[in-house]
């Protein structure tokens, strides 16, 4: 019944060794084939699986190593053509593949949509309708909760500002159309429209750039654990991972030798980076004593700085304090099970008002306080990863891209000398896409804007 092709990650997020992006719809095979380096998927037999690579169509870069299953209609779950792209487990790989598929023109599936299609196409027994309906409801509620959590106030405010700008522009065009003799506003010109679309387009681009840098929630805040040898960095890592269930291990490829652990601490997703090094007992001061180490720290959104309760503050510790100056960090004083040799007042003085937490990771003491400190740091807005860490899910990114593209289309129309009412079609689309991000799609707002902005009428 539906003519479009939908895509979604169809394995539970963050669990398991593989993760799957599933596509369903008439374009499923051709879309996958377009970005797949390997056999020609359009020609392979149905219900076969193929090794190959997904290539980013924009950059031409190799994105992921994958296994792709091709299943042709009608003997599939949805009775449509289905492609399943098996990626490495975790978030990064599937997210990237999903984004590529969406960029190619697939539509992000609504909650429960695969099952809905399966049902509507007669694949699922009518008696299961109730179950399907429950599923849609449940998944939607859950998705909404997640979306609400991920939607940071700042993002929605920014989007609202951009939308308002577009809305005023569109209302201006509309008033020219519906009230051609109304002389209070000048005719919207191509130049002015070009400026407006450019302005908003640049803002959208900024948002997307931040998203592309990976400084986004879905990938977690880059978090470094630092401290001298034997202060308990590995214990801290293990504690956070065990307490919070590690959701990713081993990103293969160019980052093969770096292990990243993804943990979710009270709703704050952390990407614990460069942990391979931390696990070794090498001299961290030596390792980060130079400029390069500063760079590593700077790229972190959050630093967990571990000190030893059982030793006095050393020169190395003081150097580390220097290194993290001006960055976002939490001081963890570990090993409170041992005798106190560390001067807490001295630490606090160095810590410049940042959180200082005492723990005994061996005795599992102070973990709650640490987690709370992490959550507080994030939710109080102290962690500022480019200020835009919150462009949070694929759907938002997809909509931002569509909103931006619509403005690009508008500018193309301007260049072609299309009349303003045609240019305005794309501007309105951009406005609508942004509205979907913040859940405001009421079409009446344009008419409200029209009459509040201009004094119209006979």
């Amino acid at each position, binding site marked *: 019944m539906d003519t479009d092709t939908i895509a979604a990650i169809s394995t539970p997020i963050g669990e398991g060794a593989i993760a799957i992006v599933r596509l369903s719809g008439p374009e499923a095979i051709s879309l996958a084939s377009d970005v797949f380096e390997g056999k020609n998927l359009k020609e392979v037999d149905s219900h076969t699986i193929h090794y190959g690579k997904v290539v980013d169509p924009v950059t031409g870069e190799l994105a992921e190593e994958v296994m792709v299953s091709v299943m042709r209609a009608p003997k599939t779950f949805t009775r449509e053509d289905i492609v399943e792209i098996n990626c490495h487990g975790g978030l990064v790989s599937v997210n990237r593949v999903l984004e590529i598929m969406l960029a190619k023109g697939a539509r992000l599936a609504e909650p429960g949509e695969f099952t809905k299609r399966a049902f509507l196409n007669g694949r699922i027994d009518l008696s299961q309708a109730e179950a399907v309906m*429950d599923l849609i409801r449940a998944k939607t509620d859950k998705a909404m909760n997640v979306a609400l959590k991920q939607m940071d106030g700042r993002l929605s405010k920014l989007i609202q500002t951009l939308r308002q700008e577009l809305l005023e522009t569109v209302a201006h065009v509309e008033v020219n159309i519906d009230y*051609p003799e109304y002389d209070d506003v000048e005719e919207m010109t191509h130049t002015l429209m070009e400026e407006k679309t450019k302005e908003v387009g640049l803002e959208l681009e900024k948002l997307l750039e931040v998203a592309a840098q990976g400084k986004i929630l879905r990938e977690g805040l880059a978090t470094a654990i630092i401290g001298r040898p034997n202060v308990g960095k590995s214990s801290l890592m293990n504690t956070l991972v065990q307490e919070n269930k590690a959701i990713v291990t081993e990103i293969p490829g160019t980052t093969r030798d770096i292990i990243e652990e993804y943990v979710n601490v009270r709703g704050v997703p952390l990407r614990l980076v460069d942990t391979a090094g931390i696990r070794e007992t090498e001299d961290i001061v030596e390792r980060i004593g130079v400029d390069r180490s500063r760079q590593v720290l700077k790229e972190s959104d959050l630093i967990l700085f571990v000190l030893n309760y059982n030793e006095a503050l050393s020169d190395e510790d003081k150097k580390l304090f220097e290194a993290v100056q001006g960055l976002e960090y939490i001081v963890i004083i570990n090993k409170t099970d041992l005798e106190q040799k560390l001067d807490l007042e001295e630490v606090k003085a160095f810590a410049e008002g940042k959180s200082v937490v005492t723990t005994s990771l061996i005795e599992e003491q102070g973990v709650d306080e640490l987690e709370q400190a992490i959550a507080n740091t994030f939710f109080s807005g102290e962690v500022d990863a480019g200020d835009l860490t919150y462009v949070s899910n694929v759907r938002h990114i997809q909509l931002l891209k569509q909103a931006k593209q619509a403005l690009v289309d508008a500018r193309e129309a301007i260049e072609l000398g299309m009349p303003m009412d045609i240019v305005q079609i794309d501007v309105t689309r951009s406005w609508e896409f942004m509205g979907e991000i913040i859940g405001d799609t009421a079409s009446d707002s344009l008419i409200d804007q029209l009459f509040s902005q201009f004094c*119209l*009428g006979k």
Partner: protein
Amino acid sequence: MTYNAGNYDVIVVGAGHAGVEAAYASARMGAKTLMLTLNLDMIAFMPCNPSIGGPAKGIVVREIDALGGIMGKIIDKSYIQMRMLNTGKGPAVQALRAQADKPVYMQEVKNLVENEKNLTVRQGMVNSLIVEDGICKGVITETKAAYYAKSVIVTTGTFMRGKVLMGDLEYESGPNNQRVSIKLSENLEELGFKLTRFKTGTPPRVNSHTIDYSKTEIQPGDENPKSFSYETTEVIEDQIPCWLTYTNEFTHQVINENLTLSAMYSGMKRGTGPRYCPSIEDKIVRFNDKPRHQIFLEPEGRNTEEVYVQGLSTSLPESVQHEMVKSVPGLENAEIMRAGYAIEYDAVVPTQLWPTLETKRLPGLFTAGQINGTSGYEEAAGQGLMAGMNAAAKVTGKEPIILDRSQAYIGVMIDDLVTKGTNEPYRLLTSRAEYRLLLRHDNADLRLTDIGYDYGLISEERYTAFTAKKEQVEAEKKRLNRIVVKPAEEVQNVMKAAGAVPMKEAVKAYDLLKRPELTYEHIEQMIEKGENISEDVKEQVAIQIKYEGYIKKAREQVARMLKMEDKKIPADIDYTAINGIATEAIEKLKKVRPLSVGQASRISGVNPADISILLVYIEQGNIARIAN
């Protein structure tokens, strides 16, 4: 005791712009039709501005004409000025607007309906509806005449419990001091209909002899006037201009000083007025930083000196109106012939209607026009036509006709009304149409003539001409796609003259026409001329080719929308039996009772998840029904 005054197929109550379209269409479809009006001399009266058309509205008039209605034909015979608006913009927003000769317009309509053989036109005040077994079977007039019919269409405009307001003067009245309809309003309430109270207003009219036009700017008609109707062959060359002047600080001072005397600002709770047609008081209160407002002086006809002062709609006392008028340049000595006033009236909450304009509560009863919460002659006429067609279709056993949002502005309007309702008098705007590129002035015939013909409202002769045009357009597009234009010198000269970048290589004429600088006429200079291609066909070909990409995109959106429109919902579905739909959505769905999943999705408060669940529920086939 009532007496049986006759049996009809369709009865139309009211003979305004909705009523005459309804009655005429019904009669032409072969239904024996009766049209009742309070006053035979007031058929198709224009109580407000003397103009027809404009953005969106003008396209509605074209649509009415393409379906076989009368508004376009009549205005073509009775205008004093014709203008094509938005000519500097794209084809989707261009629209005709005519200044009407009000008395001539009325005469022409009266003449037309009087001579329609299936149509009886009679004067009479309808007091109540005849209802038997929950079905509307006819009407009873104040003279105790009982008329029976299979369908009744009520098009009473602003007459239901109408109240004229001017300063502290208020009295029950229809527009322009006509008799008010009280009993029918009460009867509808008794029958369980929910009514709402709206208001609108009109400005004073002044005597043309007392206007100093030298202080105003002339607003002439087009040199080559176009026609609304596809049947019109002759245009009226002799046009009368309108004139533009402005309010000023003195006008605003007069208004501000007397604001509390305005009927609408006196603190009394009043009906809701339209934002798009504000009174001058509203304009000054809401936009007090504007130093001036436009005033258009529009003649009301050739044989009258009355001039409509567009922009000064008001409910201020007559004494203040004199002062206000005299403050406007050009009107210093103007004599008011009729004062402006506001009018409040009852309207039916339109979500009580099916998209056919039949009421849900009372089968056999239709309502159309301003009674449904709209404003504007064109909006009324469009609804009247649809109600007339559907009422007659019901009688003659034809399928009901519902235009969708991609077919016509009329479809957009009716869908908005019955799906979303309206909390102010509804006016069509181009921005209400999401597929406005498809709903153009130029292609109204291509969109709707087939429907008009199917319903018997388009003559064979006209239909033949229409089919020929359609074929010519296709043939010419094909021809242009066959012809290759080489960059020869004379071709480059045309390009240069048009301000286009010279051609580098041979290109199909079809693709060349897509260049923004080039028109069909330019292409004609480069290639062999097509045979017998009318201006209409040229225009159509050029628009279809030039905007092909955008039109295609819009069509794809429409295809998606129509899929959802095709998912029908049984009228008696019991929404409360569906698990999973949100409570708010259930309430809305129960109220609107959408005919399709597509319509359901446009109800505010019904979310995509609710729609998904609804789809699945309908698909499983075992649908709970409301017990009758």
